[in-house]
């Protein structure tokens, strides 16, 4: 929690120092106020004073109140600015950090958690800074100052204030000990309830089909009961807190007056009036002290949640991205579009099992190399090594003769047109999605966008959209069908005019007919580019110049379609499952 403070900018640190000065001023004014009150008390009690004499201390009292308001105006302004700019900075740093992450870090944190950390968690930190900082500076200053000011007056009064503060602290301690763990538990139980509900909603069809509504309700009931139990405990405890707090406050003023009566009664005549005004001041100081501790206790309630948030934010900021930019520019004149894997093996950092073992192949310029194999055979992982989503554990991945680890990432990425398995679209328009990003060249024209969409067989549906190429795309492309999204995602790669295309099972969302038409169009339009394709359908890959058959991370067959049918058992099995004998022979 405290470590997060180092992200305050120098300007904000000054803001906080200045605001501390103003807090001191404010406390001084707040404590000065009762002094004038005492003066008024004395004036009123002494015979023979005129009314005009009351005006003076009255005016000073007023000045104190206004001064205190102005001081807090400045303090609140400075603190609000500091807290908001800390939040802004943290958000920005976090965003940069996440953008520098490799897939390994992304998966470790999970996207959903990173989103919460970038938004909600930072808001939590901001709130505690804005509300807490001020109170945490003010309360101790106020308490110490007020105690110093009154301790000389009478030990009995000081004792009763001390007892009240002790009781207050005891209450806070009880809450921390008993309620805090429950508060934390409530967070977990709410998540649980959320999960069960979400589960029930996503599985609605299955649940109904299996007539499992009752068992789902029972699950919900269990989560509901647990959450309600924890909520009941904390809210009942809180119901105790407030009355006890106000009892401490009113009890204290009663005690001060009661004790005061005894003190005055026991005192000599001349000092009686002084004691009386002391009593009035004291009761007002005592209130201030109690208030200070009450504010502090409120901060304590907020602290645990905020500190969990701060920790979650720090965790991300302290994570070093696993992939470092190589920084080298590709040498001019080197071949374009050649990819070579030299004895590449890969395993995840926390695993002993290799996902890929000893993969070697070369894709020359303009060639199509396809990868096929069962789920978990490592096809997609292999492709992920080229844009450096992951780095090879052993061996080398070379693009145009240079190891990908040596490249400046921008230059490496500029060579690639990548189409993921699941199409990703961004809020915006068709055009902004197709002309996405930066390829190191000047931005293309509207015609380039149209052409790319046409190649990706998206022309027909795009032109049917209300605003055509300026038609809006909602977040995640939810206003398009799966096939349409995939076509725009392919158009995005085409628009980039890359040397190398990477299709990670990008065609399976399309039906056979569109798949075939699209590929033949691509073939015509992208001559000279190297294609790497992961596919599940034989039809998608059978025309490739080289097909690599993967099984459990190893290459178990390489060659063209008709060769593999003869030589590779795994390939034959796959082919048999999809095509009949006659069709295999035709192919």
């Amino acid at each position, binding site marked *: 929690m405290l470590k997060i403070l180092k992200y305050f900018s120098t300007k904000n640190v000054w803001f906080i120092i200045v605001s501390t000065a103003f807090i001191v001023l404010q406390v001084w004014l707040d404590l000065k106020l009762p002094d004038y009150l005492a003066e008024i008390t004395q004036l009123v009690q002494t015979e023979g004073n005129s009314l005009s004499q009351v005006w003076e201390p009255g005016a000073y009292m007023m000045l104190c109140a206004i001064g205190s308001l102005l001081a807090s105006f400045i303090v609140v302004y400075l603190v609000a600015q500091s807290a908001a700019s800390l939040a802004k900075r943290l958000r920005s740093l976090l965003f940069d950090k996440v953008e520098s992450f490799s897939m390994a870090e992304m998966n470790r944190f999970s996207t959903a958690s990173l989103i919460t950390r970038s938004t909600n968690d930072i808001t939590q930190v901001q709130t505690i800074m804005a509300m807490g900082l001020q109170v945490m500076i003010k309360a101790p200053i106020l308490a110490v100052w007020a105690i110093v000011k009154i301790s000389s007056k009478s030990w009995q009064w000081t004792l009763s204030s001390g007892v009240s503060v002790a009781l207050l602290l005891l209450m806070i301690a009880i809450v921390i000990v008993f309620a805090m763990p429950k508060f934390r538990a409530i967070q977990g139980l709410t998540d649980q309830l959320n999960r069960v509900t979400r589960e029930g909603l996503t599985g609605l069809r299955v649940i109904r089909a299996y007539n499992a509504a009752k068992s789902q309700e029972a699950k919900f009931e269990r989560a509901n009961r647990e959450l309600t139990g924890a909520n009941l405990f904390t809210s009942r405890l809180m119901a105790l807190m407030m009355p006890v707090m106000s009892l401490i406050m*009113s009890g204290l003023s009663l005690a001060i007056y009661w004790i005061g009566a005894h003190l005055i009664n026991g005192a000599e005549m001349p000092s009686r009036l002084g004691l009386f005004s002391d009593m009035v001041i004291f009761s007002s100081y005592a209130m201030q002290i109690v208030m200070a501790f009450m504010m502090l206790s409120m901060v304590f309630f907020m602290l645990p949640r905020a500190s969990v948030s701060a920790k979650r934010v720090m965790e991300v900021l302290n994570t070093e991205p696993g992939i470092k930019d190589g920084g080298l520019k590709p040498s001019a004149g080197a071949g374009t579009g050649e990819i070579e894997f030299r004895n590449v093996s890969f395993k995840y950092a926390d695993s002993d099992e290799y996902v890929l073992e000893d993969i070697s192949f070369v894709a020359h310029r303009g060639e199509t190399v396809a990868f096929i194999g069962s789920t978990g055979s490592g096809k997609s992982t292999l492709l992920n090594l080229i844009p450096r989503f992951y780095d090879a554990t052993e061996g080398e991945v070379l693009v145009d003769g240079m190891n990908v680890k040596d490249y400046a990432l921008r230059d490496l990425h500029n060579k690639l047109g990548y189409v993921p398995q699941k199409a990703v679209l961004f809020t915006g328009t068709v055009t902004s999605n197709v002309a*996405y990003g930066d390829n190191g060249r000047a931005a293309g024209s509207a015609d380039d966008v149209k052409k790319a969409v046409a190649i990706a067989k998206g022309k027909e549906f795009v032109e049917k959209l209300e605003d055509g190429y300026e038609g809006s795309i909602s977040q995640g492309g939810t206003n398009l069908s799966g096939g349409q999204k995939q076509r725009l995602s392919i158009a995005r790669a085409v628009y980039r005019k890359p040397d190398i295309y990477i299709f990670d099972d990008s065609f399976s969302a399309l039906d056979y007919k569109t798949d075939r038409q699209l590929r033949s169009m691509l073939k015509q339009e992208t001559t000279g580019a190297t294609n790497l394709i992961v596919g599940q359908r034989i039809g998608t890959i059978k025309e490739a110049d080289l097909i690599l058959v993967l099984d459990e991370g190893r290459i178990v067959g390489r060659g063209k379609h008709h060769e593999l049918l003869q030589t590779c058992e795994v390939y034959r099995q796959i082919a048999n499952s999809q095509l009949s004998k006659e069709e295999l022979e035709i*192919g």
Partner: protein
Amino acid sequence: MANQQTATKQSINFKGTMGKLVAYCRPYLPLIIVALLLSVVGTIFTIYGPSQLEKMTDHITAGLFGEIDMDAIGRIGILLAVLYGLSVVFSFFQGYMMATVTQKVSKSLRERISQKINKLPLKYFDSTSNGDVLSRVTNDIDTIGQTMNQSVGMLVTSVTMLVGSLFMMFYTNVWMTITAILSTFLGFAFMTTMIKKSQTHFVHQQANLGAMNGHVEEIYSGYDVVKVYNAERMAKEKFNEINDKLYESSWKSQFLSGMTMPLMMFVGNFSYVAVCIVGGALAMNGRITFGVIVAFMIYVRLFTQPLGQIAQAATTLQATAAASERVFEFLDEKELEDESRKTKALKEVKGQVEFRNVAFGYDPDKLIIHDFSAKARPGQKIAIVGPTGAGKTTIVNLLMRFYELNGGEIAIDGVPIHELPRENVHEQFCMVLQDTWLFEGTIKENIVFNKQGVTDAEVKEVCKAVGIDHFIRTLTHGYDTVLNEQVNLSAGQKQLITIARALIANAPLLILDEATSSVDTRTELLIQEAMDRLMAGRTSFVIAHRLSTIKNADMILVMKDGDIIESGNHRELLAAGGFYAELYNSQFETAEAAM
């Protein structure tokens, strides 16, 4: 965050919604009334306190130049101590009761929603986002739980305190009262304008937070594309733009809301000073005693405090209303038809399924299936094909009665399914959907699901049949491994588990909704073998892209734009040379198809 969002939204029908909420709380009404009475009494004690403190002060001042009446002081002290004590007890019981009532009401509302989910037609969920329903169960009910407790209690105490302290003030001294009221309202006029102003900044802040959330979500989840397309700078620019706006609105709203406390303090101080000066003047003239000033010093606090609280309670009550409205809106949705009077039920089903002049449209005005008839004999395999988005899942929706027909009927063994209770229809099917659905629970629980009396041996046997027994046994806890986010199953493995679930269900009819499309072809071969065994003797409806599943089907339904445009077996359809033939042949036009 969502809490505040609903809070800032103005409730459309405040009275109606609150009425519903009160009606909903009816079983607890006596408890609530007792609680409120307790809080009124407790508050009256608090207000009565200062008048006793005033008496005490008067006794002290009276004795300043003589003997203080210590007996009287003692009596008043004890009386006050008792009053304060009682007041604590009362307010505690009030708080305790209200807390209990609110939590119980929240719980029962949640329960009602959870039951309601199972009573609503699927149509509702297909047209609403899950997030929306989810936020009603959690955020909205949480808001009700938190705000109802605070606001109702606060409102009652505050009003009592306000009225009570006004009464006591007037009773004590009229001029002092007028001073206190005037100075307080002056301060409050100032504060209200502040609060109004901050409201707009809060709304902006929420909107900017929403925008930030959206952008971050988009960039993080499309991370791979952002990277490879070198779009980091572009993403950061947009991020900075939103971040700047968020910063502006957030410091402003924080500043304005941060000013409420100091302003409250100032109003308090201001009235305090005013009371002291006016009181001092009056006391000097001998028109009041000093005790009156002491009492007023406390009354002023008692008076300003509830004003702020009433304002706060009013806004939280708005939030309660907004949240309740969303909850009741959901609870009032039209439910599925009650079927308790349907006594017909299928047992021993042979598996004949007949579509008779079926007409259907998701929108009754726009029929997509106009007049479809077909008959599947027991044990036949019916494949449903068509391009993406052609509406293949419609058939599943109709067979399972997730949606009702607009005309014609579907009959199992000659009995129209709309004459049967839905549960009975569901019992006849086992189903495997494209989106595999697994819940957090052990693998065994996921496979057994809702089937009664399944032995471990049966589960194992089924898993062997679909080829995941070996894989499951390699997991640390085997069949008792809990499936959650930490356990990484491949799409294929998940699919196989749902297939095992369908095998366990062992119903006479089978639905495979693109069941094998996310499994690679080799695994599919394994599944296919298991499926073939399963399909023997069962009428099955298979939606798939794969030719192997289509070609040996007894009947193929070809769908396009929602309608069934062709039906027949593979050879018939090829011979007919229609849409199916085109779809099928496109696979093999290899001349220019290579890449």
